[in-house]
């Protein structure tokens, strides 16, 4: 099982192959278009993070001591970034999620999307991921 750090390293390496912003964005758009990220039953008002710009839905569940995230957004680029976040943080023990750094996003040139002024729900999504990790960690203890 890969650790969060290993997965982050993988993403950073992938992104380093892109030559310009267009390739980066095209990749994110592809991710955003292709991935089924959340089942309809979890796309509820309770799971919604309302941003000024785009909406984000996040759901978490425990599978064999690992926390599995599903999420979605109404904007494709936001969804592409969600896909990257899920790839890194999902299917990991809550403790590892709690301890993980999130600055890899800066290193792959997507920092501006994580700026609170974007109000796209992603900052709240990362907070939410950490909150779920706290809650499930407590449950496991």
């Amino acid at each position, binding site marked *: 099982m890969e650790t969060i750090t290993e997965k982050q390293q993988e993403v950073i390496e992938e992104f380093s192959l892109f030559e310009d912003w267009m390739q980066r964005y095209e990749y994110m758009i592809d991710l955003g278009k292709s991935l089924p990220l959340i089942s309809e039953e979890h796309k509820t008002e309770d799971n919604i993070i309302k941003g000024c710009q785009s909406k984000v839905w996040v759901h978490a569940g425990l599978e064999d001591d690992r926390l599995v995230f599903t999420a979605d957004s109404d*904007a494709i680029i936001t969804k592409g970034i969600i896909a990257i976040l899920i790839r890194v943080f999902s299917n990991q023990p809550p403790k590892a999620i709690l301890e993980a750094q999130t600055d890899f996003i800066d290193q792959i040139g997507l920092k501006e999307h994580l700026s609170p002024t974007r109000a796209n729900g992603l900052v709240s999504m990362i907070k939410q991921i950490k909150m779920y990790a706290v809650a499930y960690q407590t449950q496991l203890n």
Partner: protein
Amino acid sequence: MFDVNKIRSDFPILSRKVNGQPLVYFDNAATSQTPVQVIDVITDYYTRLNSNIHRGVHKLSQEATEAYEAARKTIQNHFNAAHAHEIIFTAGTTESINLIATGYTNILQPGDELLISALEHHSNIVPWQMLCERTGAILKVIPMTQLGTLDSNAFETLLNEKTRLIFVNHVSNALGTVNPIEEIIQKGHAVGAEVLIDGAQACPHIKPDVQALDADYYVTSAHKLCGPTGVGMLYGKSSLLNQLPPYQGGGEMIATVTFEKTTYADLPHKFEAGTPNIAGGIAFGAALDYMNSIGFEAIATYEATLLDYATEALLKIPGLKIYGEAPEKTAVISFNVEGIHPYDIGSILDQMGIAVRTGHHCAQPIMDFYQIPGTIRASFSFYNTKEEIDRLVVGLQKAIAMLQ
């Protein structure tokens, strides 16, 4: 003679690069850029005049006070207010509105009716909702049409002898609609209501005459019209401002203070507690001087050509829909492209150095009316060019190709 290249050279920020590309700034409705003539005034204030106003006996304080009061006079002349003391310096439109909304707390009775329009910015909705919660007054909404104009028939049926206050923006920030405020003021006055006009979006394009309009209150922000952020004004008829209680207590707004009783200063100082944004106030005056030196007629004529040019070019893009098609509108285009979220387009345009606004523009009720999550808003100023609009069109085509 209107020379856009000469005008552009007044704005240092316009030669900046963003993401490696020359900046195209089409977010003027959020904040306008600042010409060197205004920047110099701010620098000069902190270089030569910085001191506290209205109380120092020393030279700096006198000169700073003179400059600040001269700015008030400039604002008075610009808006054609009857008296300089009817111009209150505030932190901006939002504070101006809150000042009035707070002032009516002990004036309104339960059951009194307040009218706002469906086209308002959140800052001209929420303070009145809060006022209604405090007083038991009722907030009613003048509905809008598909074109993004106000429904004037519905407005008339909403008016009655219980209507105490009406709040309408001169121009809608999300759609650019110019509202018929003259008619609204007249009809409001006919039932005995007082009318506040939110001019934040109008003042960069239109020079209002508050006496000719017979507006009871007119509010705006300096940063929308080439001035700095954090300063704005409230115009109010002195007869009305005199009957309102002070907004904040503190220095500057008092006549005498004892622990038993404080008496308040006269207008405008009654509403200007504390040390104000002195440099900002002076720069506000300089910004109006700058815009008047270009001339509002020349600005309106030039911006109308930009609006027509952009509207025509954008409508050629398949699937593009413009929201807000009022016959009279300022140089603002709110639009969406079918099947694409505004945030995605805005993010890609940003990569190309093109600044637009995306989202609900602090006017969620308008987005709800059209049942959309938001729009992309390109808002033009007199320093923008047709070449920049061409870049927007090319940028949009590229973004659409990537996203579809």
